[in-house]
């Protein structure tokens, strides 16, 4: 394995390894393991559909001590892929709740230095009646007022509610650093992999970024994806329970 160049964007316990040139001014799409694995399924489909190059990875002592093999090559489980306009951050391991603040701070600091122009975090929104929903709807939590225009009607803005986990922290940190950010949350199963919800999420991404990513494969291979993702969903569910993810079902007690 040849490492072309390794620039460490580092802080104690957290490093972003860049193994290729990563241009500035990109849109960063996050696909982290979460409700219904919606974000991970959508993000990995983007990587395949746009043939993004692997350009980096996140290393941290707070992540489980592991690698994942693909094509016989050992890789860190949290990786970054990119082309000249889009970067995708995804994780092939469930992220411990104890790691998420470090992750959010590290990714946003890196995004600021890379002049990321927009951060999109893709995830699921658990709904009890998912089985009765033919086309899952997409909701958006925004880091700042005025970003609604960039949604292009692809999602309905969430005004009130809780977001537990990495996406909530990323959104808040982006707001502090004035990086435009959206969390796109699609109606989905809570703890079953949901490729159909991932397809809805991608349709929203297509509208927002003016892309034409074909979601047909996600739908056609839905059963295989669900089975292949079963173990990942189980681990993700364990972490979600530990960080009290069901808090998202609660109503915030105050207004504003």
């Amino acid at each position: 394995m040849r490492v072309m160049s390794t620039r460490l964007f580092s802080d104690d316990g957290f490093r972003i390894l860049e193994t290729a040139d990563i241009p500035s001014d990109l849109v960063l799409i996050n696909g982290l393991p979460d409700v219904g694995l919606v974000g991970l399924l959508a993000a990995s489909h983007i990587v395949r559909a746009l043939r993004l190059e692997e350009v980096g990875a996140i290393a941290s002592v707070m992540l489980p001590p592991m690698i994942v093999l693909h094509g016989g090559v050992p890789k860190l489980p949290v990786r970054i892929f990119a082309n000249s306009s889009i970067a995708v951050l995804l994780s092939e391991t469930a992220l411990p709740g104890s790691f998420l603040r470090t992750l959010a701070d590290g990714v946003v600091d890196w995004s600021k230095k890379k002049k990321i122009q927009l951060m999109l975090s893709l995830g699921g929104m658990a709904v009890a009646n998912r089985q009765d929903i033919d086309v899952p709807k997409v909701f958006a939590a925004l880091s700042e007022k005025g970003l609604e225009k960039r949604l292009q009607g692809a999602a309905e803005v969430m005004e009130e509610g809780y977001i537990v986990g990495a996406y909530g922290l990323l959104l808040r940190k982006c707001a502090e650093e004035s990086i435009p950010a959206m969390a796109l949350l699609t109606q989905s199963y809570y703890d079953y992999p949901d490729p159909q919800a991932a397809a809805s999420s991608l349709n929203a991404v297509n509208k927002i970024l003016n892309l034409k990513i074909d979601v047909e494969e996600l739908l056609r291979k839905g059963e295989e994806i669900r089975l292949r993702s079963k173990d990942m969903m189980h681990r993700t569910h364990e972490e979600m329970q530990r960080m009290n993810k069901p808090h998202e079902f609660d109503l915030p007690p105050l207004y504003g």
Partner: protein
Amino acid sequence: MHASGWNVAAACIEPLYNMFMTADEVVVTIDLPFVTAKKIRLRHLSSDAIEVYAETSRMISFKDLGIKHRHGEFTCYHARIKVPAPIKRKMTSKLKRGVLEVHIERLG
């Protein structure tokens, strides 16, 4: 929640499942990709447990899923599920979008 299992000896997969309770019933949902409704068997095991068995529509192997270092071929799902409240024998179920929803009346 439970351990996700691939039982090579029995050629069976333990499916993902979850449950919630209402005042009157326990509702169990089970994710069953590659299963049709006709191939599902539900059994009341005791006042606090049910069993689900479902044949897959095709044989699934680790090789199909890109895994070469483990060997296994699977033709069914199987789970014995403990429920948190005493239940009656009668169950109704519906398979939609590959997720089985089982409704069981609570005792007492």
